[in-house]
């Protein structure tokens, strides 16, 4: 790739990060953060990491921005007796303590750079990576080496990481316990609603293709699940916040999420029962198939489906927990009581 263009993209990346830091309005900062995430995904694809680029793109455009905006709108509701003054930051000129922190940060960056230079900017390649590159096709039957590492060689790590998502969803549900769904937006116009009805099936088709082809091409359960969650966020934006709550009971999402987790653990236990070890793939008797065809990779497509269910339902219920309005315990909200 053209070095000048690459340098320009890196400069843009730094510029958006600095503007996310310095912009006076929080909303502008959030949008700058969103642009930063999309630029970061472009950088990942330049660095030959298509899986990571896809994940970063869907997470940033779909999840993080919308969660920020929901939290922002929840805190900006005007209620009586509330300090609703925006904290507007003026960075010019810097205060004294900010100057001290600025110098600390510059010093931190300097010493980090001093720590990187002895590495010689050479890539780290150990025996593990060489083994994965040389034998992943034979041992797992998957074409996507990253998927093979995620769901076969390091499947136990992945189980732990989807457990982290479960913990987060639990935490947010506890924090918003007792709050209720509230019609905070009535949706967009008729034209947008009808167009969205055509687009939503395509989004869901795209998500399922990402999940099901995860062992062949960049993608997998994490990315596809996030796209599914994005589709349910579209419901909230386009059809109003009470649309999905009325049609899809939270219980369904909980069941989907738990089923995904149990499915993952159950596939691992099959390996344990056959005596090959937890989350074993080919050794546990899963047919590996022909590498490069749709039916291949043994347990990897099944694990992808489990993770897709888990991540999709988890992130969706995470968003809808925050859409629920908080009940102020000590006062009625004028004009907002249903």
């Amino acid at each position: 790739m053209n070095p000048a263009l690459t340098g320009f993209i890196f400069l843009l990346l730094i510029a958006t990060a600095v503007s996310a830091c310095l912009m006076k309005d929080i909303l502008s900062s959030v949008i700058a953060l969103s642009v930063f995430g999309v630029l970061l995904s472009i950088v990942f694809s330049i660095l030959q990491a298509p899986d990571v680029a896809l994940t970063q793109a869907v997470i940033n455009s779909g999840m993080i921005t919308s969660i920020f905006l929901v939290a922002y709108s929840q805190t900006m509701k005007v209620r009586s007796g509330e300090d609703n003054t925006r904290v507007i930051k003026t960075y010019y000129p810097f205060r004294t303590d900010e100057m001290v922190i600025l110098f600390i940060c510059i010093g931190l960056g300097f010493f980090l750079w001093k720590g990187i230079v002895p590495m010689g900017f050479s890539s780290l390649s150990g025996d593990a990576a060489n083994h994965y590159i040389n034998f992943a096709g034979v041992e797992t039957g998957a074409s996507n080496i990253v998927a093979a590492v995620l769901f076969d060689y390091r499947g136990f790590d992945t189980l732990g990481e989807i457990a982290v998502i479960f913990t987060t969803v639990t935490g947010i549900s506890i924090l918003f316990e007792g709050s209720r769904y509230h019609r905070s937006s009535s949706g967009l116009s008729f034209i947008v609603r009808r167009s969205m009805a055509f687009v939503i099936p395509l989004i869901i088709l795209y998500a399922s293709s990402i999940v099901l082809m995860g062992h062949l091409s960049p993608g997998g359960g994490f990315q596809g699940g996030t796209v599914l969650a994005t589709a349910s966020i579209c419901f909230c934006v386009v059809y109003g916040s009470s649309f999905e709550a009325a049609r899809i009971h939270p219980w369904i999402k909980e069941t989907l999420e738990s089923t995904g987790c149990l499915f993952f653990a159950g596939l691992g236990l099959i390996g344990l029962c056959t005596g090959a070890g937890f989350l074993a793939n080919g050794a546990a008797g899963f047919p590996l198939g022909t590498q490069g065809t749709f039916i291949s990779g043994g347990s990897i497509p099944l694990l992808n489906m489990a993770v897709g269910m888990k991540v999709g339902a988890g992130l969706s219920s995470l968003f809808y927990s925050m859409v629920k309005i908080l009940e102020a315990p000590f006062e009625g909200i004028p004009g907002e009581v249903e």
Partner: protein
Amino acid sequence: MTMSSMSFAAAIIIFCTGFFTLLTGRNLFRMVIGISLMEGALLLFIITVGYVPGGVPPLLPLKGLPVNPLPHAFTLTTIVIGASHIALALAFVVRIHSSYKTLDVEKIRGLRE
């Protein structure tokens, strides 16, 4: 400058920007934005460690020297988990706002004096 050195430099600058945002921000949202920036810088750093100049993506069949797939597997899950952590942080922000009626760190009772 090579690709790797540019990328490392960008990661360090963004990390320090995020750290500065986290330390100087008085608004709770600003602090969460700082954490998010630091996380992005860290992901960029880890991906760059596995980058091979002139490498190809780790997809079979390989058409050249592939980049290291191990950092990709690490960061892929980290991105999703980072998103849920940021959501948890924002949930705390909303909760704090409903209790204290302010987003200003210095006005929140119990954190000063």
